[in-house]
C-alpha cells in the first residue's frame, strides 16, 4: 500500500519489536513516577472537565454565602455586644465558625473531585490499559488519590482569600489560620481517599459521587447522634466523627491524635480501594 510507510521519511524502522529504540524500549517505572505521572494527567483532566466548573461554582457559591452570613452576624453581634458594653471575639465568631463551614462546603464538592477517576478507569478499557503497564499496581490508586487531593487543595487555597483579607484588615490570627488549614488538609485527604473508595466500588461516576457523599456525610454527622446513644457507643461514634475533630483544629488546637486519625482513615480507605480493584481482577464482574 502506498503512503503507509510506518517509519520516518527514509527509515525502515518498524513500529514495534526490537529496534534502535530498544525492543521494548519500555522500562519498568517506579511507583513514584507512576503516581506523579498519573496524578498530573488526572489533575489536568479534572480541570478541563465540567466537574471542575461545577465544583468551583458550588464551592465558591456556598463559601460566599456562609462568609457573608458570618460577617453579617458578626457585625450585628458586635453592635449588640457594644450596646451592652461587651466585645465579640472576632477569631471565634468569624474565623473558627467560618473555617468549620469551609470543611462542610468541602464535603459537598469532594465527590465531584473523585467521582470520575477510578469509576471511569473501569469503563472504556482504561483500567485494562493501566493494568497492562509495566508499573506497580499501587501507583494507580496513589496517582488518583494525589490528583483528588491536589484538586481539593486548590479549592481550599481559594478559600484563603476572604480570611486573608480579614487578616490583612487586622482581624483574627495566623495561628488559627495555620491550625485550621492543617485540619482542612487532613479532612481533604480523608475525603479524597473515601471518594476513591466509593469510586473503586461503584460501576458508574454517579454512583461513585453518591457513595462518596454518603460515606463522608455519615462520618461528618456521626457525632450528632452520639449524645443519644449508649455511653460506650456514643464515645466510639464521637471518636469516628469528622466534625468534632475539625472543630478542635479551627479553635487553634492541634492534637496529633486528630492528625493520626485522618491519616489512618486515608490509608485504610486507599487500601480498601486497592482491594476493590484487586477483587475486580480476582473475582469481579467482566
Amino acid at each position: 500500500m502506498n503512503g503507509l510507510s510506518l517509519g520516518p521519511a527514509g527509515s525502515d524502522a518498524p513500529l514495534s519489536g526490537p529496534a534502535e529504540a530498544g525492543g521494548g524500549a519500555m522500562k519498568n517505572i517506579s511507583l513514584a513516577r507512576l503516581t506523579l505521572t498519573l496524578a498530573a494527567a488526572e489533575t489536568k483532566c479534572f480541570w478541563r472537565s465540567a466537574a471542575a466548573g461545577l465544583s468551583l461554582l458550588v464551592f465558591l457559591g456556598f463559601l460566599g454565602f456562609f462568609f457573608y452570613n458570618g460577617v453579617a452576624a458578626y457585625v450585628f453581634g458586635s453592635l449588640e455586644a457594644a450596646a451592652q458594653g461587651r466585645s465579640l471575639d472576632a477569631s471565634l465568631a468569624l474565623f473558627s465558625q467560618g473555617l468549620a463551614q469551609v470543611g462542610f462546603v468541602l464535603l459537598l464538592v469532594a465527590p465531584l473531585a473523585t467521582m470520575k477517576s477510578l469509576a471511569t478507569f473501569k469503563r472504556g478499557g482504561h483500567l485494562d490499559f493501566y493494568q497492562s503497564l509495566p508499573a506497580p499496581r499501587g501507583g494507580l490508586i496513589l496517582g488518583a488519590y494525589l490528583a483528588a487531593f491536589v484538586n481539593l487543595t486548590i479549592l481550599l487555597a481559594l478559600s484563603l482569600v476572604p480570611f486573608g483579607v480579614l487578616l490583612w484588615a487586622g482581624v483574627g490570627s495566623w495561628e488559627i489560620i495555620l491550625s485550621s488549614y492543617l485540619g482542612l488538609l487532613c479532612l481533604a485527604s480523608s475525603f479524597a481517599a473515601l471518594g476513591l473508595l466509593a469510586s473503586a466500588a461503584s460501576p458508574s461516576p454517579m454512583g461513585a459521587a453518591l457513595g462518596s457523599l454518603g460515606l463522608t456525610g455519615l462520618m461528618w454527622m456521626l457525632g450528632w447522634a452520639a449524645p443519644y446513644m449508649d455511653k460506650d457507643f456514643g464515645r466510639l461514634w464521637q471518636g469516628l466523627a469528622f466534625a468534632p475533630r475539625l472543630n478542635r483544629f479551627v479553635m487553634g488546637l492541634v492534637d496529633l491524635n486528630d492528625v493520626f486519625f485522618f491519616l489512618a482513615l486515608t490509608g485504610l480507605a486507599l487500601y480498601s480501594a486497592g482491594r476493590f480493584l484487586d477483587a475486580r481482577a480476582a473475582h469481579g464482574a467482566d
Partner: protein
Amino acid sequence: MPGVVFKKTSAGVSAEFKNVSRYFGRRPALCEVSFELAAGGRYALVGPNGAGKSTLMRLLTGGLRPDAGEVLVAGAAPWGRDPATRRRLGFLAEGAPLAAELTLREHLALAGRLRGLDRLQTRREEERLCAGLNLAACLSRSAGLLSRGQARRAALAAALLGRPDFLILDEPTAGLDPEESARFRSLLDELPSSVTVLISSHILDEIFSLTEAALVVNAGRLAAFGPWSEVLPGAAADAGAENFLMRRYLALLRPETAQ
C-alpha cells in the same frame, strides 16, 4: 481442548495457558483452557460474543487472575508484583480507552512516560506512529473530539508505543473504514517477525489473512487451536471466500448443525 500446542520457533515473547479456569461469580467464563502461543506467532482469537475472548485477553495482560490453572507470559505470571513481564506487552482494549479531556499528543506523552520512555524516545515514537496511522492532523485535538475511527487508531498508537514484543489487540479494526483497516493490515505486515500478535476479531476473512493460526473459543472452552489449515480445513484454498469461512466456522462452533 487441553494440551494443544502450536509451536513456532522465534525469539520474542511466548505465552502459555495451563488448564486455566476463570469464573465470574458462579458463571464460568473460561474452563480448563490450555494452549501455548509461540514467540513470533500471529494468532487469531475468534468466537461468538460472550465466549470468553475478552477474559482470555485480560488474563494475558494481567488484568484478571485465573481461579485455577496457570497463565505464563514470557515464563512469568503477568499479574505478579514484578512488572517485567508487562513491560513487553502492548494491549489495545475493547473500545477506546482515552480520556476525553486530553489531546492525542498528551495521551502519547502519558503512555510514553508510563512505559518508561524518555522524552526524546516518546517524541520519535509519536512521529512514527502518527505518520503510520495517519494521526498527525489530530495530535492537538482532544480525544473527546476524535471520530470513532480516529479514537481507535489513537488507542492503537498508545498500545504500540514503546515497541512491545507481544501485541494483544481486541477488535482492532472495529469502527475503522476500509482505508483505515487497510492501513492497520499494512502496519501488522511491517511488524518485525519476532513480535507475537494475538488479535480478537469477528471479521473472519480479515483475521484469516492477517494471522497464521487461530484459537477458537466457544462457551468458555477452547473449541479449536492450531494453524488455520487445521482449524478450518480447506480454508486456504478458498481464502477470501467469506461464506466458506463462515460456514466452516459455524460448523466448528455448532457441530450438530454441520452438514
